[in-house]
């Protein structure tokens, strides 16, 4: 495979594609709403209507509006637009929400002049219009199970560009210049991480993609892996070239079977085309990717625990330093980035760092994918430019709370915090969210309305951390248990003022003394609700059952 071959594949695929594509989401969310049946019916209807020569039904990845699946989009292919095939009614993309299997036939019928009962969605709605798609550019638009579709939209061209037009140093410099920061939550500068691994002495190095997405309510990485697996493979390959690694691992949690299946398929297809494996693009450079499947531990999203798990050991974090960049998988320098981070690599290499740095804020460049859930009208995945305010996301894109007002927005999952409605004008950026006691996190965004008890929220997240603690270090193992029990006392209205003080001091202790990020951040939901909703804790306090003589307690 060389560049000419790659272009040939792209052209052949473009020729093969029919002018009208009926994209039907086959990702996990829509599947749960029977999208596979919808797709079957669409295909049958195309056959029945005799449209097989100009219409094709494509099982695509996630389109984002998961709350109203299954989603079907009829797309006139811009590149292959052919006037003679044009359906009169069709001037723009047609978009259907909540399609029932029985309605599928009429959608195809409508292409032939009929009427459809399917609910028509509005692509001009802020939910779609306010998005800026970089990572998800082709999510929901291509068939994730066919590499040809990915190549047809320019796939693997960035890898070619990196390999033949850039030195590894230049790739690292490009990523550094782009200002990309880790999308797993911490926001560590990606370029710096790459440079560290690249500068380690030559020898065995590894690239790991962290797909162990575990925050409650977060499904960004799953969606990217299910919808555009080659994007991640290409990003990892570019990373491998840049840092001098020839072996990559994708660590995906076992709860994502479809993502795993599609990744396996994608790796096979890429190997077949010589885009992964040995002598990529007929060069002397090899890069292979293996999949490792998690066994259901949240803590394995922590990089050192993940590495131990890949090695076949118990997924326990270990103290850092040494950082994986210096000594990671099997003590070799290891570059470990999140799925979404790798998803940004191909666009950056393709379009240049200047383009990328033009999106977002001064210190937070690019876009971020959020899983917008909770008490909100429009549930789903959105990719927004950094710097957009929470209010724009929640009220404009999300459509606000169905019946009521926003009380708080939770970001960062069990590691993040609850942001009160009064701070909704905060821009989405790494530093601004940390400043107000939360964090960017991996992208979970849970909206809560006035009926939500914030102590219950804190209690829920603490229960999660208690269950997910690996048990290695004492503050996290035993501290989260005590914190959870303390919060239970509040919910049972048995807590006293002394308990409130204990809660505060133990939060501080667990935060400062835990071994890894899980423990360090476990108190955050409590701390942020204590900060903004202190009165809710106080309202649950009760008077002690004992009486103490007035002169009794010394200091």
């Amino acid at each position: 495979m060389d560049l000419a071959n790659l272009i040939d594949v792209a052209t052949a695929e473009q020729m093969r594609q029919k002018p009208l594509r009926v994209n039907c989401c086959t990702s996990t969310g829509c599947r749960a709403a029977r999208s596979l049946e919808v797709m079957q019916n669409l295909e049958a209807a195309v056959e029945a209507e005799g449209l097989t020569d100009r219409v094709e039904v494509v099982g695509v990845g996630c389109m984002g509006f998961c709350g109203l699946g299954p989603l079907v989009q009829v797309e006139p292919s811009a590149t292959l637009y052919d006037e003679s095939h044009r359906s009169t009614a069709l001037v723009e993309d047609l978009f259907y929400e909540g399609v029932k299997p029985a309605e599928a036939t009429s959608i195809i019928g409508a292409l032939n002049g009929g009427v459809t009962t399917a609910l028509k969605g509005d692509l001009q709605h802020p939910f779609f219009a306010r998005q800026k798609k970089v990572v998800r550019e082709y999510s929901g638009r291509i068939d994730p199970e066919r590499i040809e579709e990915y190549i047809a939209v320019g796939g693997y061209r960035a890898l070619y560009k990196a390999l033949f037009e850039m030195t590894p140093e230049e790739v690292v410099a490009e990523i550094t210049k782009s200002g990309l920061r880790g999308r797993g939550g911490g926001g560590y500068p990606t370029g710096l991480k790459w440079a560290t691994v690249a500068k380690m002495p030559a020898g065995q190095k590894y690239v790991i993609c962290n797909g162990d997405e575990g925050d409650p309510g977060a499904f960004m990485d799953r969606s990217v892996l299910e919808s555009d697996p080659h994007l991640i493979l290409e990003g990892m390959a570019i990373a491998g070239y840049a840092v001098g690694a020839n072996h990559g691992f994708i660590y995906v949690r076992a709860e994502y079977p479809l993502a795993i299946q599609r990744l396996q398929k994608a790796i096979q297809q890429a190997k077949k085309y010589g885009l992964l494996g040995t002598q990529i693009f007929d060069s002397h450079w090899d890069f292979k990717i293996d999949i490792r499947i998690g066994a259901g531990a949240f803590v394995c999203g922590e990089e050192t625990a993940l590495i131990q798990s890949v090695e076949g050991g118990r997924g326990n974090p270990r103290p850092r330093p040494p950082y994986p960049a210096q000594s990671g998988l099997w003590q070799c320098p290891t570059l470990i980035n999140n799925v979404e981070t790798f998803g940004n690599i191909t666009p950056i290499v393709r379009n240049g760092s200047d383009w990328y740095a033009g999106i977002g804020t001064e210190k937070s460049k690019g876009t971020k994918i959020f899983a917008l859930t909770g008490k909100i009208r429009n549930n789903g995945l959105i990719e927004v430019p950094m710097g957009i305010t929470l209010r724009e996301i929640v009220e404009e894109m999300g459509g606000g709370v169905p019946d009521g007002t926003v009380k708080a927005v939770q970001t960062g999952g069990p590691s993040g915090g609850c942001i009160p409605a009064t701070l909704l004008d905060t821009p989405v950026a790494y530093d601004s969210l940390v400043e107000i006691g939360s964090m960017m996190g991996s992208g979970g965004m849970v909206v809560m309305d006035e009926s939500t008890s914030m102590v219950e929220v804190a209690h829920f997240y603490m229960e999660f951390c208690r269950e997910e603690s690996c048990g290695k270090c004492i503050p996290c193992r035993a501290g989260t248990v005590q914190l959870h029990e303390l919060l239970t006392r509040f919910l049972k209205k048995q807590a006293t003022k002394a308990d409130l003080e204990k809660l505060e001091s133990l939060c501080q202790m667990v935060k400062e003394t835990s071994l890894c990020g899980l423990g360090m951040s476990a108190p955050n939901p409590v701390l942020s609700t204590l900060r903004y909703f202190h009165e809710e804790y106080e309202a649950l306090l009760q008077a002690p059952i004992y009486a103490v003589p007035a002169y009794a307690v010394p200091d």
Partner: protein
Amino acid sequence: MSVKTLEIDGKAIAIEEGATILQAAKENGISIPTLCHLDGVSDVGACRLCLVEMEGSNKLLPACVTEVAEGMILHTKTPKLQNYQRMTVELLFAEGNHVCAVCVANGNCELQDMAITVGMDHSRFPYRFPDRPVDVSHEQFGIDHNRCILCTRCVRVCDEIEGAHVWDIAQRGEHCFIVSGLHQPWGEVDACTSCGKCVDACPTGAIFRKGSTTGEKERDRAKLEFLVTAREKRQWTR
């Protein structure tokens, strides 16, 4: 060999590169509390008792796994650290069933000593009273999970020194326990060489030699007979 100079609790220290803060402190007579650290086996940084403060950093550093660096200014006895150390020990006491009065290690226990070191006169955290088993299937030894603090010294000593790897950790979080073999009774684990290193490594009374528990006191029945003869026949020697 290059040497690093640093300061711990106001004391200027020079030590070879690659040494840990804990080694530097120990060599210079500065005591830092530890529980999971054991000389001779690898460090895991799990008990968090050896955390120290470094000037210019807001992160606490585990002394056992942090290498010394030039110019470090460290404090090991700040009120904050002492408070956290005490809370850590309280969490340990509250987590298991540590009944010193009926423990084989009473008076010879690192956890008990640690409570004294950190000034713990009571636990501010309610005791959990977990239901934990005791395994006395081994011919010579027993393990009482009630007293285990999950320091993993036994795991490491068995793996790294004896090379048998009988022990490991099962489950997670509060449900963690030290598991023998493939979750078999200890006595049925073929890999165990009965070397007893885990008994010596255990900081508490969790892993013990049989015959040393309060319930297994060896009875000197002959003594009664001796007393009787001594009184009746005036024979004072045995």
